[in-house]
């Protein structure tokens, strides 16, 4: 990020914070299940919807690191709003920015940059979540155009988007060919379901999308038809990095709230923050927050190759969403009974944080894939003491199981968690500049050292299978 871009982003963040103190009420938005029109209008005026869109198409043309920084700020204020904006500036518009034709950009990207249109991205289906190879939505030729049929679920921004990027099979270009087709809510055959009633991020819109013989011209396919597998890595990587940055912003807010509460709450004649156990919790949260910032910093480097970008963004999303959950939960705990009361803001924050471990790639899947990358040499890292411990464990597993190790998903899942924690320790050391940051990075390294061991034993596969069989039998008898 250039110095000028950095200054512009800082100014935007300050402006957002000033605006938020008067106009963003996350709890009210949560209760009402949406955003007031004047809030969206103000975001349009600030240019928020065009952050990532190139200047020639009406946006600010900011890089991923800058967009992450702004989304992190928004997430610290309102998680639902960060979800809506993050989806728009990331997966909703990124493919069009990168691969769209000039005609498509003129027609769709300009109004998306101004915020006149909002974007949605529809990939998940009832039978295809983490396994996108299972999608059944199809775009097939009819006359000069295409006809799209299928169903999508969990479509973020579905209730107010004007442009849906829909992932569909395009069998005319090959058995495995998929493409992104832009659909409008008023295209005949497009049916948008009612808003889903959710555990968290309740002000953001999540809907189903049913497509019944939706006829569209061929110029609705973004870029080269049937080439979505080449377009998606960058788009999905942006999506994951933005989730990671949102988690970082939320965690910072949860930590700040815990610090303020424990400094002001007097128990046993002194502020809670004087108690050793409270201080230890706060120190752990602070170190974890710094590691999360470091993972966003690493994931938003677009100068690495595509494979490494994918791996880093998966690692950052999985690590930060787990970290966010931990920080929000600990913060609520440190608030005591107050944290359980809606007015404190902590219940909404905790509920909002939960989805991050699921969307944009369920963490179980990401950790399992990351573990496989580590076990089979697809992740390259500089040496470190923590890395040596992990590598020795992987070498022992490879010796014992050979390629069959890849079929033991439980081991891969644990390896992924261990590897991501170690990577976060390396990232934190790399990012630390000030004395305070060095302290935070060192504390995170100590925490990883303590947390690593339980993730590294070889599990007894036979016992896990026997336990599962016994559990299923009990449930069937009940």
């Amino acid at each position, binding site marked *: 990020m250039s110095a000028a871009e950095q200054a512009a982003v800082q100014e935007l963040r300050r402006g957002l914070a000033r605006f938020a103190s008067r106009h963003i009420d996350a709890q009210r938005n949560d209760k009402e299940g949406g955003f007031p029109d004047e809030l969206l209008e103000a975001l349009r005026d600030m240019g928020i919807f065009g952050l990532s869109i190139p200047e020639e198409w009406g946006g600010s043309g900011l890089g991923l690191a800058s967009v992450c920084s702004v989304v992190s700020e928004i997430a610290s204020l309102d998680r639902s709003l960060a979800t809506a904006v993050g989806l728009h500036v990331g997966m909703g518009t990124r493919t069009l920015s990168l691969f769209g034709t000039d005609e498509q950009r003129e027609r769709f990207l300009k109004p998306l940059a101004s915020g006149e249109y909002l974007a949605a991205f529809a990939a998940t289906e009832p039978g295809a979540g983490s*396994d996108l*190879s299972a999608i059944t939505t199809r775009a097939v030729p009819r006359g000069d155009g295409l006809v799209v049929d299928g169903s999508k679920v969990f479509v973020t921004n579905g209730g107010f988007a004007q442009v849906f990027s829909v992932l569909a099979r395009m069998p005319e270009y090959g*058995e*495995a060919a998929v493409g992104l087709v832009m659909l409008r809510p008023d295209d005949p055959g497009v049916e948008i379901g009612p808003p889903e009633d959710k555990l968290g991020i309740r002000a953001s819109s999540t809907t189903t999308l049913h497509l019944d013989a939706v006829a569209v011209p061929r110029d609705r396919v973004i870029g080269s038809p049937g080439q979505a*597998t080449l377009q998606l*890595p960058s788009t999905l990587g942006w999506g994951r990095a933005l989730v990671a940055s949102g988690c970082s912003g939320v965690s910072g807010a949860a930590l700040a709230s815990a610090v303020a509460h424990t400094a002001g709450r007097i128990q046993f004649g002194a502020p809670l923050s004087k108690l050793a156990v409270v201080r230890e919790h706060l120190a752990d949260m602070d170190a974890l927050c710094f590691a999360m910032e470091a993972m966003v910093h690493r994931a938003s480097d677009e100068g690495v*190759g*595509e*494979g490494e970008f*994918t791996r880093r963004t998966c690692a950052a999303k999985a690590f930060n969403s787990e970290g966010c959950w931990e920080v929000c939960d600990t913060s609520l705990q440190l608030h005591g009974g107050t944290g359980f009361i809606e007015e404190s803001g902590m219940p909404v924050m905790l509920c909002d944080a939960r989805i991050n471990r699921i969307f944009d790639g369920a963490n179980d899947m990401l950790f*399992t*894939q990351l573990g*496989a*990358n580590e*076990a*089979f*040499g*697809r992740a390259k890292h500089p040496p470190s003491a923590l890395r040596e411990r992990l590598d020795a464990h992987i070498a022992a597993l490879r010796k014992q199981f*050979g*390629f*069959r*190790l*890849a*079929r033991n*998903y439980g081991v*891969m899942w644990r390896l992924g968690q261990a590897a991501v924690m170690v990577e976060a320790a390396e990232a934190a050391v790399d990012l630390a500049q000030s004395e305070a940051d060095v302290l935070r990075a060192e504390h995170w390294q100590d925490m990883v050292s303590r947390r690593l061991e339980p993730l590294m034993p070889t599990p007894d596969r036979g016992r896990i299978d026997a336990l599962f069989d016994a559990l299923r039998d009990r449930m069937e008898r009940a």
Partner: protein
Amino acid sequence: MSKTEIETRLRDIVSELLECGPAEVDADRKFTDYGLSSIEAIAILGDLEDWLDLDLPTNTLWDYPSLDRLAGYLVELTA
């Protein structure tokens, strides 16, 4: 690298993953039909990358979903 060499290497990996004999692996059958997922795909890609000294896209086994098609693609790539 010849197609036979690559096919032999792939057959060895897949048969080890499936715990069957190399001859039992059908070169035209899709990897997914054998129950191999993106996790096993990473193991296969990792081995091929080390062996051929290449960086392969993560979606390689999506685009070339059988042993025969993957071997054909790798022959072109290493030619």
